[in-house]
């Protein structure tokens, strides 16, 4: 799936976890989930669970730990739905 399509879908997944909607609208591969979007690090697992449900995929714990940026997220999702 096109990274662009995944990014647009990812914005919807991230939305409940950040108050900065303006920044969310303009995220790119380099946006840091915790530092830039100010997402509580405890909520990263919720984002992964939501993404898993959305795409009917499973992201294992080791892959999940590598998710720091929006780009990492897209990589992890893209790899599973190939």
């Amino acid at each position, binding site marked *: 799936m096109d990274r662009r399509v995944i990014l647009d879908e990812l914005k919807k997944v991230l939305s409940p976890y950040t108050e900065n909607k303006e920044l969310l609208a303009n995220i790119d591969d380099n946006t840091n989930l915790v530092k830039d979007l100010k997402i509580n690090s405890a909520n990263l697992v*919720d984002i992964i669970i939501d993404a898993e449900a959305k795409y009917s995929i499973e992201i294992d714990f080791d892959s999940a730990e590598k998710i720091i940026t929006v780009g990492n997220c897209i990589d992890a999702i893209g790899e599973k739905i190939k």
Partner: protein
Amino acid sequence: MSRRVVITGLGVVAPNGVGVPDFLDAIRNGVSGIRYEASYKDLHFNSQVAGSPQFDWNQLKNYVSEITFHGLQGHALGYGIMAALDAWLDAGNGVGNSETLWDTGCVFGSSVSECEVVKKIINRVDAGEAKKLGSRVIEQMMNSSITAYISGRLGLGNRIVATSAACATGTQAILMGYEYIQQGLAKRMVVGSSEHVDPYIFGAFDSMRILSRKFNHAPEKASRPMSQSAGGFVPGSGAGALILEDLDFALGRKARIYAELLGGACNSGGQRSGGSMTAPASAGVIKCISDAVTSAGVNPSSIDLISGHLTATAADTMEIRNWCLALGRNGRNFPPVNSLKSMIGHSLSAAGSIESVAAVLQIVHQFIHPNINLEDPNPEILRQIDPDCLPVTMVEKEIRTVAKANFGFGDVNACLIFSKYNKNG
């Protein structure tokens, strides 16, 4: 040095009114919040009536951040957050402070961890799907969940205590907050309690055969404290919250003062001499009321109103007897007594705080709320006190001092003495 403790804010989520204005209107007019629960018929419960607040869950978006709201599930949590924040704002405070308020703490109680939240956890784990639980369930199943949400929202930095003492929880939580301020440990305390009676808690009480089951066809008549036709209590849900403040601190910030909390007491009958897991020992109840009166420094003859525990079980008669003995008053000399439970049922842990909000409102607005469903007072009670002590319509009267007590499973008792605020002490 003895510090005086005043009430500067009130918040309430009750079956007959959400928010203080609606609740005040309801208790003045004897409005019942008891409704028929169709799902309870399907669950084969004997009792099919309950008091549930008409609560719009989406309103919580005005109380917590969007991120917190997403994933918030516990009803008792929602009720508690709304009551506590309403009380905080009512006291003239704001939210959104970036600094921690070191002089302000919170004592908030509840009965049980939210069964419906726990059920979801159990179902997930048993299905081998623990991985899907996410980060938001522990914070909502821990006993300190409500205090964690309230203190986080308000930035409270003094002691944060989650309590549980069955039906005495709310009263006890208020007393604990009072004691911290009186001891000089805090300037201000957010106190209260919350309860959500879900089908699991309701079913367990139903099985004990202590719920009202003969008025399923007429729910508003089902909760009948002190009535001859009382046949058990009606479970209710909701939350009550008060802001307690050191008098000097309140005066310093020019806060509006609703009333003063003069004192109180809390004890246990030790499950001896007639006391048990489910029944209070009279000696403990009498001692608790007497100690509260002594603590408040008032004469028992100056009590203008008793806000009883009075759940509509066989224990009501004994409770009136205990009040008579504790205050040394009976017959025509007994003060008026009312039970808010006639309108909202018994909201277990939340009972003490919701009834305390009602007690303060009766002092502020100088009235006695009616006992509804008391057209047939129990003759055993009338052998002890005059019928005029049991108002069935709203009475406008000078109310200076109110005694409020609750008694809970485990033979625990708590009693508070509220008074009209007099700046000369």
